């Protein structure tokens, strides 16, 4: 079977990256804001002070704007698996589809139901009842993210499935292994808590704006305090989980961790593994497979990545060399699989089983085989084909290296910002530090940026695989005309840019307005604007 046009593969990747990155502008804020709202409402229920109800409703309104647009942008991606990644869907659909289906149930049944109750239930539910609904909304949105990240965890480190040579696809062996895979766990906690950081800085930044403008100080001071504390604990947790993910990558995705660290040679190449420097700055060159302008800290890399003193981190060049025999085995596996498909003989099946674990590496060789047909690989041309294919196991090092560093530097900046913010808030000295308040305002978009670069690190570092070690990305796409892909890409870019413009307009508008009397759930006795999310008055038929 001929390979899919590389332009179509690139455009499919670009389209998925674009829609995922757009969607991910909204998701972290949703994940974090729900639990911040739950914290505010908890204080309201415990203390009975109306200011906390006002806080919950005001921040809930901003959350509502973000949630609505976030859901709209997320819908398309599930369909893209079918339209643009049909080979991928065929190959792993049995496994990958399950968490996606559960996510749909979580997002559209649990989360949406409770969000409706949260917004419209203030006058209909008891205080504890409404608080329970707010917690369930928070849980629902985070559980929705959990199933997406379980699915993504499978792409990074396929667990709970095996390849069936009869159906020619991966099938479940253990649902529990899929759900409790290390990658899924660490990814979920890292991403969810990165959302907490995003929500915290959003609340803190807008509260800082009010404090600077000397408006709504009662609400702003309390919101700032809660967000600063929420943020400092969350950032420390994000850093911890980032470290766990790094170690996991070292164990199961060695090409990714080497790309993240710009490690072309083994970590013990110069003196000892222990002395290997951790690079703060470098300019990796993918063509020459080397770095320039390196600035590093010696004796940090090995303990940081391996959690040991002397374990060697394999370099990308050495990993290329180690991939060569796996590619040769992969070619044998695919030959045997083809033979088994025709004859269903035990000998072919036995050969396939012998080399099954390297099957994905055989796919890598296909693009370099004569007529892209592995049956035409001969002992004479095999070495050249394997050599070319082995270079493909290396992801784009420049992109992976720098996207990781931008995310990480921002993470440590957040630790410092939240630490100062929490300290000055707890000691009631915020107004004496207007620079910190201004910094909080200007930092509002930065956690979203960090989340985006984190996502790029995870997905660019996974290349060339769509399912690590099993299915290369260039084999996973659908075959479409290039024109179709360009048209749909432009359509998505225009539509999603409109969504972002709408979100920014509404956010700025409602954040500048602040909490007002007419937004309270209690309708004015006579005249005045209709309250947002209010129960329609029974005597008033105008809404019918």
């Amino acid at each position, binding site marked *: 079977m001929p390979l899919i046009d590389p332009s179509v593969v690139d455009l499919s990747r670009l389209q998925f990256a674009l829609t995922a990155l757009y969607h991910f502008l909204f998701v972290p804020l949703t994940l974090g804001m729900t*639990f*911040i709202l*739950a*914290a*505010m409402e*908890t*204080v309201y229920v*415990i*203390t009975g*002070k109306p200011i*906390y109800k006002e806080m919950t409703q005001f921040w809930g309104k901003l959350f509502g704007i973000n949630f609505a647009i976030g859901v709209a942008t997320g819908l398309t991606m599930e369909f893209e698996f079918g339209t643009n990644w049909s080979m991928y869907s065929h190959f792993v659909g049995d496994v990958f589809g399950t968490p996606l289906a559960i996510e749909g149930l979580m997002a559209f049944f649990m989360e949406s139901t409770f969000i409706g109750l949260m917004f419209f239930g203030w006058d209909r539910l008891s205080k504890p009842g409404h608080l329970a609904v707010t917690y369930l909304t928070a849980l629902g949105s*985070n559980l929705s993210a959990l199933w997406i990240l379980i699915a993504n965890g499978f792409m990074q480190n396929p667990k709970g499935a095996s390849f069936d040579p009869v159906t020619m696809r991966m099938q479940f062996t253990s649902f*529990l292994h899929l*759900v*409790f895979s*290390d990658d899924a*766990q*660490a990814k*979920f*906690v890292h991403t*969810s*808590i990165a959302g*907490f950081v995003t929500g915290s800085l959003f609340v803190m930044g807008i509260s800082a704006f009010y*404090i600077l403008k000397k408006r709504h*100080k009662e609400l*702003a*001071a*309390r919101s*700032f*305090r*809660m*967000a*600063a*504390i*929420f943020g400092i*604990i*969350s950032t420390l*947790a994000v850093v911890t*989980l980032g470290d*766990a993910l790094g170690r996991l990558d070292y164990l199961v995705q060695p090409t990714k961790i080497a790309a993240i660290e710009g490690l072309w040679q083994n970590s013990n190449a110069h003196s000892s593994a222990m002395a290997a420097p951790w690079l703060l700055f470098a300019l990796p060159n993918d063509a020459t497979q080397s770095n320039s302008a390196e600035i590093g800290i010696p004796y940090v890399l090995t303990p940081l990545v391996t959690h040991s003193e002397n374990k060697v981190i394999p370099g990308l060049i050495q990993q290329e060399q180690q991939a060569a025999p796996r590619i040769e085995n992969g070619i044998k596996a695919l030959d045997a699989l083809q033979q088994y498909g025709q004859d269903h003989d035990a000998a072919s099946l036995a050969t396939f089983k012998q080399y099954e674990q390297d099957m994905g590496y055989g796919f890598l060789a296909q693009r370099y085989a004569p007529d892209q047909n592995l049956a035409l690989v001969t002992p004479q041309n095999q070495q050249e084909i394997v050599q070319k294919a082995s270079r493909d196991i290396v992801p784009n090092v420049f992109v992976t290296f720098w996207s990781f560093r931008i995310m990480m530097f921002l993470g440590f900046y957040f630790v410092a910002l939240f630490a100062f913010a929490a300290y000055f*808030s*707890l000691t*009631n*000295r*915020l*107004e004496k530090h207007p620079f910190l308040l201004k910094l909080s305002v200007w930092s509002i978009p930065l956690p979203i940026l960090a989340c985006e670069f984190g996502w790029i690190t995870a997905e660019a570092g996974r290349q060339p695989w769509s399912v690590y070690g099993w299915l290369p990305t260039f084999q996973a796409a659908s075959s479409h005309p290039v024109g179709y892909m360009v048209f749909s890409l432009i359509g998505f870019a225009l539509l999603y840019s409109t969504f972002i413009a709408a979100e920014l307009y509404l956010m700025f508008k409602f954040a500048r307005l602040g909490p007002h009397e007419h937004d309270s759930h209690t309708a004015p006795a006579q005249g005045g604007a209709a309250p947002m999310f209010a129960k329609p008055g029974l005597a008033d038929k105008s809404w019918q």
Partner: protein
Amino acid sequence: MSTFFKFVGLALVIGFALFLAVVAGDYGPWYFAWLVGTTMIVLISAAGAVLFDTQEKSGKGDI
């Protein structure tokens, strides 16, 4: 009677929480950490707000 049902309800919640803790602790330590950590973050943040009210009441009403 309502107090009795309240206690039964709370006992069921505690039982479920313990079951969740055992399963998550055995099979998914990071999931368990998320459950405990998120609860902790929410409660400490709420405590910060209560502390603010106390500081305000005791005359340290500056922001």
